């Protein structure tokens, strides 16, 4: 019954069409994205290459000195397999210069800084290349808030933000993402040996099954528990969704006029496109 088994042919067509249409309608034909060596950005690179032609896709790998060397190797592998443009811009000097001022910073602060450093590089290349920045956050991460606001969550267009990690695996296999990238443990790669699933405390498969029923199917707490999910797990995930909701919204604006942006001044982003 799992709704996580999606129609890959259809999904591929929708996501490729999305990138092609939404990029071209703003008068551009190029995109730029960060390639981490992980599966999410690899899939987005393949989608973009199919949508606009690999020559119009620019991938940038932005390692820090503690990044696993295998990540850059995998990023290269993805760039070669998809035929896209590839460059490496290390972030070590910028990040280290900043933390010389704050040597006691925690891992979380360091990780966020790295994510935001990468964002500034991608948006700088957006201006340099006349290219839109593609986002690479999937629905699982976005719902759990497992990402850095204005860091890896920042983009102009996100083709995979409405598909779960389980879908990312399936579609990656369908589109020919190298198997080394599909099969490895997902990791934010902030320190050696870090894995997402260890840090989160559950597997993506487990949480996707829950999220699909909770969010997409709107099962109640009682229905979820009766359906076999542990009550503590259900409550913990509900809390994660609620507590990270600020990351999925624009900054809150104090209303004083009759037409406040996004509240009673409402236009689609594709206004006039």
């Amino acid at each position, binding site marked *: 019954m799992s*709704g996580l088994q999606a*129609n890959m042919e259809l999904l591929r067509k929708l996501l490729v069409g*999305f990138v092609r249409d939404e990029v071209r309608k703003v008068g551009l034909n190029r995109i730029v994205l960060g390639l981490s060596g992980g599966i999410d950005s690899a899939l987005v690179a393949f989608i973009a290459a199919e949508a606009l032609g690999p020559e119009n896709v620019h991938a940038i790998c932005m390692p820090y000195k503690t990044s696993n060397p295998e990540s850059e190797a995998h990023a290269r592998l993805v760039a070669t397999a998809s035929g896209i443009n590839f460059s490496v811009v290390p972030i070590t000097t910028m990040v280290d210069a900043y933390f010389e001022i704050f040597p006691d910073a925690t891992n979380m602060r360091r990780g966020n800084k790295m994510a935001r450093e990468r964002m500034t590089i991608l948006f700088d290349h957006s201006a340099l290349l006349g290219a839109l920045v593609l986002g690479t956050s999937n629905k699982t991460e976005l719902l759990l808030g497992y990402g850095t606001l204005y860091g890896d969550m920042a983009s102009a267009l996100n083709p995979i933000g409405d598909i779960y990690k389980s879908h990312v695996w399936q579609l990656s296999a369908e589109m020919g993402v190298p198997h080394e990238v599909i099969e490895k443990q997902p990791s934010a790669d902030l320190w050696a040996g870090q894995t997402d699933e260890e840090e989160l405390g559950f597997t993506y498969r487990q949480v996707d099954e829950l999220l699909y029923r909770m969010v997409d199917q709107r099962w109640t707490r009682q229905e979820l528990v009766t359906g076999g999910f542990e009550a503590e797990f259900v409550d913990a995930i509900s809390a994660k969704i609620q507590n990270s909701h600020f990351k999925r919204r624009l900054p809150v604006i104090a209303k004083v006029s009759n037409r406040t942006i996004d509240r009673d001044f409402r236009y*689609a982003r*594709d206004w006039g496109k």
Partner: protein
Amino acid sequence: MDFTAVLAQIKPKLGCVADNLKTVEEQIIKARESGAELIVFPELALSGYFLKDLVPDAALRSDSPEIRRLIELSRGISIAIGFVEETDDYHFFNSALYLEDGAIRHLHRKVYLPTYGLFDEQRYLARGTTFRAFDTKFGRFGMLICEDMWHLSASYILAMDGATTLICLSSSPARGIEGDSLGSAAAWQKLTSTTALFLNCRVLYSNRVGFEDGVNFWGGSEYVAPSGESIVRGALLEVDFITAQVDEGALRRERIFSPMIRDENLFVTMQDLQRIAQERGR
């Protein structure tokens, strides 16, 4: 009579009436040159769908130069088209016009404005209040705009009013990737087929394509015969120009084989609906 209809599966630009009018005119000329006698456009073909606060900016009066231009073009081919209508008292409707021989034959204002899920129409638009069949060169027609068709009563009223052809103008968003085919497309195909079958009517369904803010409109415009069989269907997710050869004989034969509409008892229906309305206290 037999006639040739074109379903213009276009990709309107959001809020760009002049650009869309140009596309529409090109499609009309192309259809006319191909020998078609009727062209059916999607819902809000002149404006795009997720207008929000653009509604007043993209609206046209029925006597505007843009609509007058389309009325002129209808001397060569009959035209069904969706647009935002502005009235004398400054209400804005999601409307469809049927233009024929240089005149407006019918104006339908969408009655059921969805405001659930991704929809928010009733925030921005006024509600239509009636379903009415009308006479055309090709027989008696009824028009529905997208969500209207999901209300059985709407198609039923048109069929009772004598319509044998239902035109549905649509801007249906793609969603549902779990099944063999697109969820919203599969649901619509069941609906158009079942409606045709129940009411012994043919259905001309015209749905747009393209993306607006990440939402895809799936196309798949089709001509469904009164037997419920889909005779011709447009491409999924792509611009298309679908030609349907509409066969009068098929309608006649279906109404002989399955005369449900002949046997439909309007008196029983009315009596019970009135009883129900009374019991509900209004």
